[in-house]
């Protein structure tokens, strides 16, 4: 199992480097990287559905926001402490993903994209509609006192970095484990040829629904953590832009690779960060990258790496 050792070395090595980075990086990049790791966790969740199962959703902001509001509203209105609030967020994401999956998975291809987009928009408008509870576009701040998990103040930058690293590690390892499991391999087979999988005796609907719930739960975990670590929740995180961003990150990094979501998020974050000196219209960069990727590199960075040098890369 030489290949497996290399895989472990690569992924474990990245986690080790990220862990060490918190002692070495200047404060500005330290904060950026914490944010990138949380967003990359979101992208990992997206990638399970898009990259591995082949279902292109345009509505993942719904799950990210379900996690964020499941956590945030729990803290704000029910007085939950961070740990149960985090769980409430993840559960909210999983339930929403289950419900959306039961409906949307009756469609395929373009219809699936539009259906997920529409339901996510319905969710976004719902958050705006109940603005007395959600504070709508403005959002609400989660106070520092409410962000202490097991005696650790998550608003302190070192703790925040470590928490983001822990979340990212958990998501990365879960993804790596999943794609080596029979379940994950079946998802890949569904992406390649669903009808054949069905005629091998698999319940493909149940598998896709499972992928949707796992993807939704991971996205929700990222959303809940984002709110907890950065101290706010707002309707803009449920907007269409937050459904497009994970698609962009995953396409850029390489759909259907474990590391792709992180690589894509890292690249995109710094691309926008660097360009903010030139223009405030930063979504322009996102638009250009989307078009260029569709035209020239549908495989993404890690996808190219796999194609050229390392066929076994998970």
């Amino acid at each position: 199992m030489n290949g497996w050792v290399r895989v472990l070395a690569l992924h474990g090595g990245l986690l080790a480097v990220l862990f060490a980075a918190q002692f070495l990086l200047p404060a500005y990049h330290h904060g950026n990287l914490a944010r990138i790791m949380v967003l990359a966790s979101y992208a990992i969740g997206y990638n399970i559905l898009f990259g591995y199962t082949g279902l292109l959703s345009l509505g993942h902001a719904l799950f990210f926001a379900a996690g964020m509001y499941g956590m945030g509203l729990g803290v704000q209105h029910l007085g939950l402490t961070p740990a149960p609030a985090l769980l409430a967020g993840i559960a909210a994401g999983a339930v929403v993903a289950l419900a959306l999956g039961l409906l949307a998975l009756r469609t395929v291809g373009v219809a699936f994209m539009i259906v997920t987009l529409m339901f996510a928009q319905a969710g976004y408008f719902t958050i705006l509609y109940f603005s007395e509870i959600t504070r709508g576009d403005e959002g609400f701040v989660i106070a520092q006192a409410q962000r202490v998990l097991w005696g650790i103040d998550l608003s302190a930058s070192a703790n925040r970095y470590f928490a983001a690293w822990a979340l990212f590690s958990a998501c990365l390892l879960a993804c790596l484990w999943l794609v080596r499991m029979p379940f994950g391999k079946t998802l890949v087979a569904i992406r390649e040829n669903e009808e054949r999988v069905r005629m091998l005796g698999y319940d493909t609907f149940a598998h896709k629904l499972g992928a949707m719930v796992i993807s939704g739960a991971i996205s929700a975990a990222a959303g809940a953590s984002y709110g907890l670590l950065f101290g706010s929740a707002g309707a803009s995180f449920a907007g269409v832009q937050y459904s497009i961003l994970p698609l962009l990150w995953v396409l850029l990094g390489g759909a259907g690779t474990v590391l792709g979501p992180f690589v894509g998020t890292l690249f995109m974050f710094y691309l926008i960060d660097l360009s903010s000196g030139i223009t405030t219209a930063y979504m322009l960069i996102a638009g250009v990258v989307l078009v260029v990727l569709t035209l020239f590199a549908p495989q993404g960075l890690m996808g190219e790496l796999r194609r050229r040098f390392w066929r076994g890369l998970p």
Partner: protein
Amino acid sequence: MTLLSTRGLSKHFDGLQAVDGVDFDLPEGEVRALIGPNGAGKTTFVGMICGRIAPSSGSVVFDGADITALPAHKRILRGMAYTFQITSVFPRLDVAENVALAARRRLKGREMTRAVDEVLARVGLLERRDEEAGNLSYGHQRLLEIAMGLVQKPRLLILDEPTQGLSEGEIASFKELLREVAGQTTILLIEHNMSVVMETADRVSVLDFGRLLAEGTPQEIHENAAVQAAYLGTG
């Protein structure tokens, strides 16, 4: 014992009667060939047996249970295996993973790996186990398709035109393979190549315009005037 039977099985698409009231019985252990001219309804008929196509009316009984209402994957779990007429492997996955996907329904871990290698050796693809399936030649992809059927150890193996597009040499080794498998499982074989039918089938059923036209041993069918009229277009 009858493994598979259909009663009054019919399918019409927008006025076209593709399959028309077919009563069909297949005893356990038999190799049955299903022949008929193009458009006779063979693939539709088999599609209704394995659940890819919903029948307009009629019933399918497999192993003593009515499975007419079951979705395809549940029928497969009851011991059917279906190989596609148009090669339908997973082109971007390696050969062993293609077969493993079929094997994982019933086996795990080491046993699964062993079964995969065994089947690959049997169809002569073992040394290609780590290649991407899409890079195999057409003939090898057909063999891979059959390996995916065999590894499921099905009680009923449905082969939809397995020799289509194969060379003479490949057909000869396919016949060999079929004879080996014949003792272990029941086989329903849709086939155009008459030499394959004559040499491997125990009995032959003939479909024409969606109806069951004749049934008998290969020899009987060969001599049947009605079949010759339908099939060969000669009087």
